[in-house]
């Protein structure tokens, strides 16, 4: 939204002038509020699962800022004339279960009648003002870790097409419903320089947001990136969502692919994710220890996927 002036006082630590995963506002020298909102249309057939995923997705922005979510408000759009209220109840039950798991208090909400069902949260978290993690602040040599596999956009398209197997549907649903809390808690024990979560722009789209105005570049090792094997199979069958193509078209100028990186891998690296993992940029001396710790906390897919380079600046290079 170019040309708009956003109101902000001196306590806005992260605002729209440098958009990040969430806004951050200083309350005292020790406490800053993190605020974020996210909602979307159903991503799973099962209403309970959809509720869980919507909440895991909304809370993720707080974790990506290095914070702890504390309160939430429900946002509901529901076609009350055409749909059974029992479905809404199941969605909310799934959401509440996730909030309880995250230790978040539900303190309110708002619902409207709408033709299309939507659910999500407005979330408030807290963080120490000196410990905010943004998309900036990384240095040459830092390593990048990704905590969840890529491919949910493609697999969700295969699900819509009725071509996905029951096993992969379950696996992907489980992963989307999984909180990024454990990964966030683990990373706070290490020298982490920057963090973001992977959602609609895809991995490379979100990495582009990191390199813009940073003066530095990023290098991604495609073979090291965790990917659902089924996503490759479905992408080869043309089950690639429009969002993924759009991500590529929009950000391709920032990315240089090595010739050995095939077209399907390129799509997967741009694949729009729902409730994806965290990208954690960490001091190189800490990377192996952090990775080991993440895996020990039950995040088996976590992997070092690349590093920060000084040249070429403002670009992403993808090698095999």
């Amino acid at each position, binding site marked *: 939204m170019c040309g708009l002036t956003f109101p902000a006082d001196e306590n806005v630590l992260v605002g729209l002038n440098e958009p990040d995963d969430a806004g951050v506002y200083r309350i005292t020298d020790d406490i800053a509020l993190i605020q974020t909102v996210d909602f979307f249309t159903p991503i799973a*057939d*099962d209403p309970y699962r959809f509720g869980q995923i919507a909440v895991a997705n909304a809370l993720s922005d707080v974790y990506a800022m290095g914070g702890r979510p504390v309160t939430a408000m429900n946002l509901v759009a529901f076609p009350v004339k055409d749909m059974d209220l029992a479905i809404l109840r199941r969605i909310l039950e799934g959401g509440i279960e996730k909030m309880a798991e995250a230790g978040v208090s539900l303190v309110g909400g708002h619902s409207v009648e709408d033709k299309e069902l939507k659910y999500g949260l407005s979330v408030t978290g807290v963080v120490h003002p000196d410990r905010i993690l943004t998309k900036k602040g990384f240095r040459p040599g830092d390593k990048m870790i990704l905590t969840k596999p890529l491919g949910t956009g493609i697999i969700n398209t295969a699900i819509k097409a009725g071509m996905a197997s029951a096993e992969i549907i379950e696996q992907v649903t489980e992963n989307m419903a999984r909180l990024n809390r454990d990964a966030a808690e683990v990373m706070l024990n290490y020298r982490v320089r920057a963090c973001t979560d992977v959602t609609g722009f895809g991995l490379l789209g979100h990495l582009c947001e990191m390199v813009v105005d940073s003066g530095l570049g990023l290098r991604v090792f495609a073979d090291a990136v965790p990917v659902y094997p089924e996503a490759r199979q479905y992408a080869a069958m*043309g089950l690639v969502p429009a969002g993924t*193509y759009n991500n590529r078209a929009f950000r391709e100028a920032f990315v240089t692919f090595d010739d050995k990186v095939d077209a399907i891998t390129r799509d997967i690296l741009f694949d729009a994710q729902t409730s994806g993992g965290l990208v954690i940029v960490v001091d190189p001396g800490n990377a192996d220890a952090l990775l080991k710790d993440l895996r020990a906390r039950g995040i088996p897919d976590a992997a070092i996927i690349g590093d920060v380079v000084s040249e070429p600046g403002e670009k992403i290079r993808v090698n095999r």
Partner: protein
Amino acid sequence: MGDIIDARGLACPQPVLMTKKALEGMEEGSFTIVVDSAISKDNVVRFATSQGCDTRVEEKDGEFHVHVVKGGAENTPGEEVKEAPASNIAVYVHSDRMGQGDDALGRILIKGFLKTIKDVDPKPRRMIFVNSGIFLTTEGSEVIDALKELEEMGIEILSCGTCLDFFNRKDALKVGLASNMFDITSALMEADKVVIP
């Protein structure tokens, strides 16, 4: 040149599904599918290629005409493609019983019905299991082997995903694929005949 399929204005994965359907309905031949976005064009070309077909794309006034050719010596099939039966009959199993009256009798009859399909002609193209019908495709069913045999013959076996969830039998599916309402509705609409036991 074969049929023309109009997939303009449709979002992914619909054009791919239409291509899939068209390919399933033919042994050999060609058709043209018209799409109005580069995204759909790429996806259709990919799908057809993955099914061992040749494609040629013409761009006309912002629309893409994708010519798909199936069969012929120069084709190297990508994945193994099962030949679907020639009929376009859908069997819609909406209960774990056949007929009304006595439930115990109904359960015996439905087993008999499903075991007999392999011996009759024409055979269905798809079999769709919804509501308590999914007890026939999940663990504990006595007709799993019979259904697997039908699947081997190229008959698509689909179980309603919402129903599997509802009965908490998502992990118990033993034959065919879990499906969704979009797929099930289109399968019923496009069928020449729907058989309800």
